[in-house]
C-alpha cells in the first residue's frame, strides 16, 4: 500500500494488522476475482477469518471477542477490503449482527455471544423492507405474541448473507405505528417459516449474497427478544452508526486497492516513449486519489476514536461514510480512466472495483440519508 505508515495504539494492534494482512494476501486476494465472477459466497474463507479471531474484534474478551477498539478493528476491515470487498463486508455485517445481543441482550441471550463471535456462526441483519429502506421506522413486518413465541410475518429486503447466515436480527413491529412499536428478535436461520428468496442479481459485490427473506408465520421463542419491547428502532439506529464506520473503512480499502493497481499499471505502461506516470495530467490524478484516501481514512478513524472514548459520534460516522464512499466512487472511476481501455475490461480488477464502489454509496443508509443525519446536527 505505497509504504503507508499506520499509527496504531498498541503493539498487539500491529500484530493484529500483520495477521490480517497475511490472511488477506494468502486467502482473500487469490480468490476474489473467481468468486466474484461466479457469484459464490466464500463461506470457508469467512470461517478461516473466524478461526483467526477476526469476527469478533471489537467485543470484550469475556464474551469471546478480542477487546479491540474500533480504531483498530476498522483498519483490519480496511486491509481485508483492499483484497476482497465482499470478505470485508462479511466481517463488517457479522460484527454488526452481534451488536444488538451484546449491547441490549439479557444474561441468557449474551450466553450465545461466544458462539456468535467465535467465527463458526454467521450473522445477518434484517431491517430494510421492499417498500422502505431509508424510512425504517415505517417497517411492516409484524411479530405477534402467541404463548412462549413471537409469530413473525412479513418480508425483509436487501438482506446481506440471506440464506448463508446462521442467525438473523429481525426488526419487526410488535406495537403500534412509528419507531416505538418496533422490537428486535434474534432468530435462528433454521426456524421453520424463515424463507430466504433467490439472491438479487447485483451490479457488483456478487460474492456477497443479498436477497429478500419472507417470514411466513415463523415462530421465534419469546426469550429471543433483544432488549425490551419497543427498543428495536433505537437498537437498529445505534448499530447503524457502527455499521456506517465499517462501510467507510471498506471504502478506504477498496479505493486503496484501485489506486495501488492503477499506480502499478501506470509505472509499466509507456506511451510516446515514456512511462505514462511521467505525464503530469495522470500523475496529479493519482496524487488527488491518494490524498482523498488519506483524508477518508483520517475522518473514519477520528469518528472511531470518538466511539472508543464513549463520546457521541453519530454525525462524525455519517460524515465518514459519506466522504469515504463518495471518494471511493471517484477513485475507482479514475483508476479505470488511468488504465484506459484496459481499465474497462475484466482482465484487470479496476472495473470490478468501480462496480463495487457504487453499492457503498447506498448501503447502511444512502449518502442522502447521511447528509440528512449530518444536517440535523448542524
Amino acid at each position: 500500500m505505497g509504504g503507508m505508515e499506520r499509527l496504531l495504539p498498541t503493539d498487539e494492534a500491529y500484530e493484529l494488522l500483520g495477521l490480517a494482512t497475511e490472511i488477506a494476501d494468502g486467502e482473500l486476494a487469490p480468490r476474489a476475482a473467481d468468486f466474484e465472477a461466479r457469484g459464490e459466497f466464500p463461506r470457508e474463507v469467512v470461517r478461516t477469518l473466524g478461526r483467526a479471531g477476526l469476527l469478533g474484534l471489537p467485543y470484550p474478551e469475556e464474551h469471546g471477542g478480542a477487546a479491540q477498539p474500533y480504531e483498530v478493528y476498522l483498519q483490519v476491515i480496511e486491509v481485508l477490503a483492499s483484497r476482497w470487498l465482499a470478505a470485508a463486508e462479511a466481517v463488517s455485517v457479522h460484527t454488526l449482527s452481534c451488536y444488538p445481543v451484546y449491547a441490549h441482550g439479557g444474561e441468557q441471550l449474551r450466553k450465545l455471544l461466544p458462539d456468535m463471535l467465535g467465527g463458526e456462526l454467521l450473522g445477518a441483519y434484517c431491517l430494510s423492507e421492499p417498500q422502505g429502506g431509508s424510512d425504517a421506522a415505517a417497517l411492516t413486518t409484524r411479530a405477534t405474541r402467541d404463548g412462549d413465541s413471537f409469530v413473525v410475518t412479513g418480508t425483509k429486503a436487501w438482506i446481506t448473507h440471506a440464506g448463508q447466515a446462521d442467525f438473523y436480527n429481525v426488526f419487526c413491529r410488535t406495537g403500534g405505528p412509528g419507531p416505538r412499536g418496533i422490537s428486535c428478535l434474534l432468530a435462528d436461520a433454521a426456524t421453520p417459516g424463515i424463507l430466504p428468496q433467490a439472491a438479487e442479481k447485483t451490479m457488483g459485490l456478487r460474492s456477497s449474497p443479498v436477497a429478500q427473506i419472507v417470514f411466513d408465520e415463523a415462530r421465534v421463542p419469546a426469550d429471543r427478544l433483544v432488549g425490551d419491547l419497543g427498543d428495536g428502532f433505537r437498537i437498529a439506529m445505534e448499530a447503524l452508526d457502527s455499521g456506517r464506520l465499517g462501510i467507510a473503512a471498506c471504502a478506504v480499502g477498496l479505493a486503496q486497492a484501485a489506486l495501488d493497481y492503477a499506480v502499478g499499471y501506470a509505472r509499466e505502461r509507456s506511451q510516446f516513449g515514456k512511462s505514462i506516470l511521467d505525464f503530469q495530467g495522470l500523475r496529479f490524478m493519482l496524487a488527488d486519489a491518494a490524498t482523498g484516501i488519506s483524508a477518508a481514512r483520517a475522518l473514519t478513524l477520528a469518528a472511531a476514536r470518538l466511539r472508543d472514548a464513549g463520546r457521541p459520534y453519530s454525525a462524525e460516522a455519517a460524515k465518514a461514510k459519506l466522504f469515504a464512499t463518495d471518494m471511493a466512487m471517484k477513485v475507482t472511476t479514475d483508476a479505470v480512466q488511468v488504465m484506459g481501455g484496459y481499465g474497462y475490461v475484466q482482465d484487470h480488477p479496476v472495473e470490478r472495483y468501480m462496480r463495487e464502489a457504487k453499492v457503498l454509496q447506498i448501503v447502511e443508509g444512502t449518502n442522502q440519508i447521511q447528509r440528512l443525519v449530518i444536517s440535523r446536527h448542524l
Partner: protein
Amino acid sequence: MNIVVLVKQVPDSGAERNLRTDDNTVDRGSASNVINEMDEYAIEEALRIQEAHGGEVTILTMGPSGAAESIRKALSMGPDKAVHVVDDALHGSCALATSKVLAAALGTLNADLVLCGAESTDGRVQVLPHMLAERLGVAALTGARKLTIDGSALTIERQTDEGYEVVTAQTPAVVSVWDTINEPRYPSFKGIMAAKKKPVQALSLGDLGVAPSEVGLDGASSAVVEHSKRPPRSGGQKVTDEGEGGVKLVEFLATEKFV
C-alpha cells in the same frame, strides 16, 4: 502423546537468497527469515494429533538468536512450548553435527514422536531425519504424505515419484512430512498474544554436553569451498516460423520431454 516438532528458520525462498562471501554459509543477516515452509506442515500435523490424542507439542529449533522470531511464530499456531538451542559455536554446522546437537536436545525431551519437514528450503539435503533417527536409535518414517496413529503404531504413506509406499513403525520415531500431508492453519490473534507468554527454554552446547569442536565450521564433515552467482538466463532458442514452426515447437517439447 509427547510430540516434538523440529523447526528451522530459513531465508524466505520467495526473496533473493545469498551465501556469505567470507565463509560460504547462508547469509541470514541480509535475508528476510521465515519458518521453513515444510516445517509448518509438521507443526499442523502435530497439532492435529494433539487435538485427537492429547499430549504436548514442543518446538525444537537450533539456530542463531534471530530464530526466536520464528519460534514465536510457530508457537502462535498452537504448540505448548519451545526449546531453542543457541550457541555462537554452532555457526556453519553441517547436517551431521546438527543431528548430533538435535539428538542431544531431544534426549532431554522424552518425545514419543519427532515431526519435521522432509527438507529445508535452504539446504534441501533431506538427510537430517534419517541421521537423527539413527542417533536416537528409533525408526525413521520419512517423506510422509499421510500419517495415521493407532496406539503406539505409526503408519505413513511415503510419497515417491511413482506413487506411495506404506511404512509402519512403533513409537518412538522420527517422521518427516511433505506439503501434501495437510493445510497448515493461520495463527489466531489470541494465539499470537498467547505465544508471547509460552515458555521458551534456551540451551547452549554446554547444557547439552556437546563440545564446540564437534560442531560449527571447524567440526563440519563437509565444506562449501567456493560459490558463484547463478549465471543470468540465456536468451533461449528462437524459432522463426517459415512454415514449419509448429513442427519445430513439437520437436523441442519432445526433446525436452515436456510431452
